[in-house]
């Protein structure tokens, strides 16, 4: 069968006799035409009449148009199927609005079903005005409701002088003999609906159904272990055949095109070696492509249009910044990096576009020396958003056609589709985009004036429906859906996914048509018998159209065992070897190479010039103690994980709120005597003021984004917490607060440091207690050992000229407020003076002063290690890593810590 994909020899007499050839689909029509054209070229002709071959449906519609132009039929406007669907949606939601007893979860899906139901009913020529029929529908709620919708739908059509495509066919049936009749031949039809029959016979002088001569080839059946293995076998098979005979025609039928296409394409590329360099020369045609909405060009256009709405997400913004299709020249600048980092730090994933606009317009370099342009330049992103803001008409409703114009205008603000030249695929996608805009415009037919959000949604749906696929020349290998392949001829054809559970399919009757009616009239998908006949006919058709027919199935899908389709009973089982899942070259190169190992735990020492500019204060030593690598990465490389999103304030932000409130509180109260004198109402007011002060210190942007409710609640919580804390303070003997957030500078092992001590209390005897506020759980253990987990308190301690009298964490936690610490005076409950006992598990020192000396040594060692560039990956405990976030960089073995995780 060297004729290629369709043997037209048997058709020649028909062509000569002037028959119009009708096919079930475009693909076959195109195929036959190109076959015919090839013959004409071979016969040396330069110009000839186009072959009259068409899909049945378009031929019928052309006849309808002809009839209208001859004034045989009244001119009504046929809606496209998308428009009809939109009309259904409107009808359903209208009906729903007036029927309190139901509220659909998926109105759009219902519209599709209803649209389909009407189509079927028309095609099977069911008279929906008949009393009996209507009664049948009214027997149950679903069909009955459909009937109401249908009535509304018809009313709408009539009112606006519109009809659907199937209505056109219906009108044709009444035309018998009025338009010049032609002779038609039907190719490869398995079933025709009664309406199609009627229309054909009304219009044609003669209808011939062409029997295909059968060429029963060999039928083979392959079992594969799973889906992937199956696709792999198919890809390898196709490539091998193609290599031996490049002209051989190969068809691959994918049962589930949507799901498996991408995987098969990849595997074919791998087998045909078209992954890297030869990416564009894969000799394979796919019958479907991707949805236009997913094409990068259009995806970015839609994203940009989304900026006309109220909210967007950080992820979208990051996506825009890397787009090739927008005019954002500074997307890769330092400014942009700073801007993105800020977005992450602000902590909200969903942003108001207005906030985004301000942020992008105002991002500035406070590192003056680094930025040639000077401060507060703002990003192009911000400027575009400002321009967008000026398009006030976005806030008004309009018809789709008007929106189409505005949308183009919006896109031009962003310079879309960019200044870079597009490649040919992108160019095709751009053309498609314009076509979609036309389609969108035409929704004026069914839509009134709609808001921008709805318009964008509609446009997005249009893009999603529109399929983009590279226009390529016919390739020897074709990948097709089950129906598309029917009727085509191949030398080799492979049916994938012939699972017992899917072939034949389980019946899927339309729920809006009474089942009895469906089975009586043999409507499609109505009964298991019909599905079986349908499947069997299809397989027969495949078998007739090739030399060898392969079918494959997998023994299990997602862990569930399955059988081959019963339609394949006559196929001969054949075992093809399964291929390794991993590409052989990968395995080879993995085995060939031995990695080298270098000990790289020490960075160059910190130069003295760099020491003074070091930021981070006490956290440098804390990090050094927790994990030297972490200190190096954070404080010398300046690496920190991007912020994680939260819906409210982050723990750190709440922590600083608490600090701020306590700062204000003690600024007012001052000492224990004042506290004890404070009456309930006064305390109430003082706390209130402290809370207000703390909120005032929050960055304005953040304050706005958290919302009023959160702010109120947080204020209430904070106030309650402060009262709880003051109760702890009231228990203490006399003290006065002498320092709050006091900055001290300190040099420790060559490392200069600026520290901010939360609070210093003085006791009547003049001794000083250093206090560090914590909102988490603290223990004295955090201060002990050679690598104390929270060394900052120790730092504050040694910064005191004479050792402090006590070091204490003020643990300010709801329902668990207390002091935790140690020292030589019991300045509060929870501050231990029994040094020996308190430290015994980790240290030997039993005297306060000796302990302080020891601490100084420990801190000096940590500081020294940092200065020297110690960057060993050595977390204090596995838990340290959990909250660190630097794993990708330090490459600590993740599974190592797991051994511990549930040891109680």
């Amino acid at each position, binding site marked *: 069968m060297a004729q290629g994909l369709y043997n037209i020899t048997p058709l020649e007499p028909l062509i000569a006799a002037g028959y119009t050839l009708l096919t079930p689909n475009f693909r076959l029509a195109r195929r036959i035409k190109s076959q015919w054209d090839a013959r004409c070229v071979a016969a040396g002709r*330069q110009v000839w009449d186009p072959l009259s071959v068409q899909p049945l449906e378009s031929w019928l519609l052309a006849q309808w148009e002809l009839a209208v132009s001859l004034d045989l039929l009244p001119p009504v406007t046929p809606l496209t199927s998308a428009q009809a669907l939109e009309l259904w949606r409107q009808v359903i939601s209208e009906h729903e609005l007036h029927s309190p007893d139901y509220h*659909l979860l998926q109105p*759009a899906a219902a519209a599709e079903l209803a649209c389909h139901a009407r189509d079927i009913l028309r095609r099977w020529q069911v008279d929906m005005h008949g009393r009996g029929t209507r009664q049948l529908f009214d027997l149950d709620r*679903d069909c009955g409701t459909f009937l109401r919708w249908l009535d509304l739908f018809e009313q709408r059509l009539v009112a606006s002088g519109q009809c659907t495509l199937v209505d056109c066919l219906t009108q044709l049936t009444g035309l018998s003999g009025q338009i010049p009749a032609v002779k038609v031949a039907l190719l490869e039809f398995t079933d025709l609906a009664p309406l199609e029959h009627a229309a054909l016979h009304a219009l044609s002088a003669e209808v011939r159904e062409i029997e295909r001569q059968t060429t029963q080839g060999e039928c083979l059946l392959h079992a594969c272990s799973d889906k992937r293995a199956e696709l792999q076998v198919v890809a390898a098979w196709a490539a091998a055949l193609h290599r031996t005979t490049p002209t051989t025609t190969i068809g691959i039928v994918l049962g589930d095109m949507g799901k498996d296409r991408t995987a098969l394409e990849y595997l074919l590329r791998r087998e045909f070696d078209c992954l890297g360099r030869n990416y564009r020369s894969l000799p394979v045609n796919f019958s479907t492509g991707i949805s236009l909405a997913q094409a990068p060009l259009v995806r970015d256009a839609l994203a940009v249009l989304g900026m006309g709405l109220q909210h967007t997400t950080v992820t979208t913004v990051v996506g825009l910044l890397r787009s090739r299709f927008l005019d954002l020249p500074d997307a890769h600048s330092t400014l942009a990096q700073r801007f993105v980092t800020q977005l992450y730090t602000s902590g909200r994933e969903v942003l108001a576009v207005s906030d985004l606009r301000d942020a992008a317009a105002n991002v500035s370099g406070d590192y003056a020396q680094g930025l040639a342009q000077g401060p507060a330049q703002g990003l192009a992103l911000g400027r575009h958003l400002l321009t967008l803001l000026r398009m006030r008409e976005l806030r008004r409703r309009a018809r789709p056609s008007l929106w189409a114009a505005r949308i183009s205008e919006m896109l031009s603000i962003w310079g879309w589709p960019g200044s870079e030249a597009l*490649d040919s695929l*992108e160019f095709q996608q751009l053309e498609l985009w314009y076509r979609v805009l036309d389609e969108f415009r035409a929704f004026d037919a069914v839509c009134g004036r709609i808001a921008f959000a709805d318009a964008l949604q509609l446009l997005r749906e249009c893009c999603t429906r529109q399929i983009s696929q590279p226009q390529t020349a016919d390739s020897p290998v074709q990948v097709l859906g089950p129906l598309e392949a029917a009727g085509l001829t191949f030398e080799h054809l492979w049916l994938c996914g012939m699972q017992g559970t899917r072939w034949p399919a389980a019946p899927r009757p339309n729920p809006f048509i009474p089942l009895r009616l469906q089975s009586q009239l043999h409507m499609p998908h109505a009964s298991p018998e019909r599905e079986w006949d349908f499947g069997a006919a299809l397989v027969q058709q495949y078998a007739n159209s090739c030399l060898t027919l392969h079918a494959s199935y997998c023994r299990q899908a997602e862990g569930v065992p399955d059988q081959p389709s019963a339609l394949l009973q006559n196929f001969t089982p054949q075992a093809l070897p399964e291929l390794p899942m991993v590409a052989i070259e990968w395995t080879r190169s993995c085995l060939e190479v031995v*990695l080298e190992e270098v000990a790289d735990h020490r960075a160059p020492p910190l130069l003295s010039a760099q020491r003074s500019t070091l930021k981070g204060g006490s956290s440098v030593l804390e990090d050094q103690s927790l994990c030297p690598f972490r200190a190096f990465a954070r404080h010398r490389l300046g690496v920190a994980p991007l912020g994680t999103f939260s819906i409210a304030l982050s723990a750190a932000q709440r922590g600083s709120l608490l600090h701020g409130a306590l700062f204000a509180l003690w600024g007012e109260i001052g000492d224990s005597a004042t506290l004890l004198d404070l009456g309930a109402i006064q305390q109430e007011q003082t706390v209130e003021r402290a809370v207000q002060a703390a909120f005032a210190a929050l960055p304005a942007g953040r304050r706005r984004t958290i919302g009023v409710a959160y702010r109120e609640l947080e204020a209430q919580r904070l106030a309650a917490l402060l009262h709880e804390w003051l109760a702890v303070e009231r228990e203490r003997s006399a003290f006065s607060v002498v320092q709050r957030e006091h900055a001290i500078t300190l040099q420790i092992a060559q490392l200069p440091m600026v520290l901010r001590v939360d609070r210093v209390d003085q006791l009547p005897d003049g001794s000083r207690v250093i206090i560090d506020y914590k909102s988490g759980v603290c223990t004295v253990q955090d201060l002990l050992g050679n690598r104390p987990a929270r060394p900052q308190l120790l730092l504050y301690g040694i910064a005191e000229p004479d050792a402090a009298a006590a070091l204490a964490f003020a643990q300010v936690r709801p329902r668990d407020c207390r002091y935790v610490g140690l020292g030589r005076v019991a300045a509060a409950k929870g501050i231990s003076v029994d040094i020996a006992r308190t430290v015994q598990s980790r240290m030997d020192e039993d005297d306060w002063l000796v302990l302080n000396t020891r601490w100084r040594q420990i801190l000096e060692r940590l500081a020294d290690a940092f200065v020297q560039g110690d960057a060993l990956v050595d977390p204090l405990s596995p838990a340290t890593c959990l909250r660190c976030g630097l794993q990708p960089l330090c490459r600590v073995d*993740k599974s190592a810590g797991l051994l511990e995780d549930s040891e109680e």
Partner: protein
Amino acid sequence: MNTTVDATARAAAINPLASFCVSAPAGSGKTELLIQRYLCLLSRVSRPEQVLAITFTRKAAAEMRERVMGALQSACTGEPCVSPHQQVTRDLATAAIAADRSGNWSLLQNSSRFNIKTIDSFCAGLTRQMPVLSQFGGQAKVQDDATLLYVEAVLELYTLLDEDHPVAPDIKALLLHFDNNWERVQELLVSLLARREQWRGYVGVHHRPGESETYLIATVAALVSDEVGELAHLLSPHSADLLALLQFSATNLSLPVLPHNFPSDLRTCRRIRQLLLTKDGNWRKSITKREGFPNGRGEQQQRKEQWQALMTQVQQIPGLQSRLVAIQTLPELETGSTSWDLVLHLSRLLPTLAAQLLLVFQKHGALDHSQVAQSALLALGNDDAPTDLALRLDYHLEHILVDEFQDTAITQFELLHKLTRGWGEYNAQYPQAPRTLMIVGDGMQSIYGFRGANVGLFLKARREGFNGVPLQHLELRCNFRSDAGVVDWVNRTFVQAFPPQDDVSRSQIRYSPATAVRPPVHVSPVGMHAFKGVHARTQEVDFICAQIATCAAEGTQTLAVLGRSRSHLQPIYHRLQQLNIPCNAADLHSLAQSPVVADLFTLCRALANDADKLAWMALLRAPWCGLQLADLLCLVQYGAAPPDTPVWSSLQSAELREALSVDGRTRLQYLLPALRWARAKRDRLGLRVWVEQTWLQLGGPQCAPDVKSLRDAEHFLQLLEQAEVEGLGLDLEWLSRRLQTSSMSVDDPDSRIHLMTLHKAKGLEFDRVIIPELDRLPRSDGRALLLWDEHTNTRGERLFLLAADDHCPGDAPTLYNYLKAQQRQKTLLETTRLLYVGATRAVSELLLTACVWWDEKADVPREPSRHSLLSPLWQEFKQHMTLHLSDAASEPLDRSVSARPLARLRRDAVDTSADIDVIDSPPVAGRTVARQNNPVERSIGTVVHLALEELSRRQVLPANTGAQDQRRWRMALQQQGLWGDVLETSVQEVHHAIAQALSANHIGRWVLSAGHSGAHSEWALTTVNAQGVIKDIVIDRSFVDRQTGRRWLIDYKNSRPTPGESLHDFVVRESANYMEQLQYYRDAVRTMGAEPVHCALYFTALGHLHTVTELDLPAADNGINPCVH
């Protein structure tokens, strides 16, 4: 070896005239039984769909379908039967085949006619068939994990806070109570949404808050009165004594006197508890002044004796102690208390939350299984107005079989209830052909309480049946799986470990012993090993691994190590890795834990976001580059660049690269081309191919530690494929979630050695089973913010309670504490059942190991924690364990996270003359975007074309157009998408163009005239050009002018001069534009005729015909034959 113990039950189970509840313990061959009954029922129905079998998993459904099919097939082929048991199946299958033939079912061809389904797919089918009744609308995406949707619903709920919604105060109160921690409250509400089938009946969408409140109050009251009543019942023989004693103590403690109808209230019960039990729930040994019994003589002495006597008696009352203990935790709800307020807030807030979820479902067109089930229930109607299902399905459901009923949740239960409505009456009418139900389950294997399964429903169904269809209880006893030795041990051990009685209200199941069918094989089939000492755990692991090693080396037996959680299996897995023993440990590690995947993910992060400095630095540090610390430092500190310069920009600087070490420079020479390539190819290749090719160029596969990890890489890349399919692109959030939930590849999927969790092992069997680390506890989830419980009380009513953490101390009688106690109790029971599931997986050998703590003083092992798996079998274990002492010298497991050297690819210096900046540029189409911008003009053009074509076909050209024509144009313009005002003006324009062409003496009349010869309108031709390219063309108008004998080729254009452009300039411009096209037409036509040719443009809007004289062609010499059309 006794197959007859349950022969009657097995025979009865296939009786099609009755309904059953079958208890089928582990290994009892219930699947075969189900199949037999299924076959039997098939032969009694008129359509196979009328027998519905519901399984727990899709896998089980597939297996059952396969086995039924197998039975039918062998009945057809008539394979010989080897056992009487098989013969039973065969006979039933033969009958079914007969039914198949007579009913024309073609079952053998069409296995989809078997109505064997999971509950989820059955419900999905119902909703599909009833889109309005189920309020579903139509097919939707059902998500297995709908967490993101729940999260969104909660966030939507939060937005109500700023909107003064009626429930705002409730949300606020709840948030405030939980420290305004929105994220934790979010988690809490999310978990509630995930389990909403349990509460929606009480506080769901359609409930008014007041109703819920009343319901909850009533429930608590009923609960208390039930318990009190139960206690009163137990104590009734002793009430006189008790009353006296209580009065006595009350007087002494000056407490209020007790009522006489005793004991009627909770307070009294609590006092009784105090009288009889100590604080921690043990029987009192003595009684003192504190309890109101001062020392003394006379009455005091006498009362104490009376008390003593009473104590001896009441201690004999079975179940009394636990009842008394329970009394302590019974909640006292005081309105106005925090605890109660919280419940009220929740009950007001939940309906709104549920409503928000529906909106989210609607918005995304996606939903969860729970919603499907809920909608299916809705579709079936309520008892007052049931849906006529037969009408919707076109058949009546006649028989239902349900497997694994012990794991049934309430929705399934309700579904069965609705499906069997009216069956009782039907059966009374047709006793010869009744509708039947069979539920099969094993309460002892109920281990899914945490997922909402409620074993109490199994007991309830067994006791009450459904809708007047009673269920006969059949118990299977035979165990076909395990050797007699194992079965005996299991019987002995678990009869003690399980509670003695079934108890619906406490989800309590007693043990029913099994009878072994297989003979004993091993002398000691069950081994129990205890380890003690400092390195006990290490030793235990080593011991287990030694057992595994032996098994792996010899024989063909399968062995499974079954852990309580994944983390419990980790030490064993790591040891096996060290010993190089491959095993099948699926699901032990997530894909994210694979180092190769981690690096790939880093690459994706860097590609996705230039500003992700961490990812970029990590990219430089990964094995394919392996930049050293000094170079990394140099890179970020070089020159005066601000510290947040994107790493990628820094890398561009040649000057900076010069500043690096030689090693660093070399390494970048490898890295940079790959990354440049990646950037140039962004969005130009398939996602997977793009990332994969970049990875390959970086040297990804070479960096993999072993071949197995390449499978992880492949898996990762396949996830990218999937992201592409779902249209997500490089979505890091999605990807990282998928990495967490996907599993790392196993060493060897075909290995006989399996490591898995006990839950996963359900339904499987292995020759040898090891259950390790029995002493270890599950990870504690911390203190739940919210607890709820759904249970069935002694009267078979379902109760639902819900409480939020009220921060009260643990012994306060709050609802929260009560529920907490309940939950703990249920978990303990389930722990025992989990162990039972594990132990019954073993065919011939069972090995149990644990570390034990030693009470050195008494020199006995200490009692293990009640929450450990060891606890239920402690008595047995203690007696028979082999004790292993770990000697101090034994090596502890290597757990240090020691500093590992930087592993990286070797890189030789490349020839620096090679320009690393070279990349292959993307294919560029030199074309720019050309497009007629005005869509309206375009549409008008099209319609004018149509109209002209139509006119040209008329025999007689009219002088004018009619109303009918205008109607047609209007329609055509509408089809082009023009509506409203634009439509009107467009109709006018068309009219103008046509009227102009038709006006008297106008050139248009000549163009359209029917008087020409060889005339065509919209003349379609197929041509082939010199390059062999086939092209279809359409020529608007062509004819041979009779007078001149010239052929005209005319193309219609509806363009106009731009403002200010002269007609001449315009015409020149347009002819230039279309020159090429016209020439092509001309050359094509030339081959068909020898006439001289004129080409022209007809400007419809202007009514102007312009002959493009440049293209004039004289008559051809006779080389060309005119073509015949």
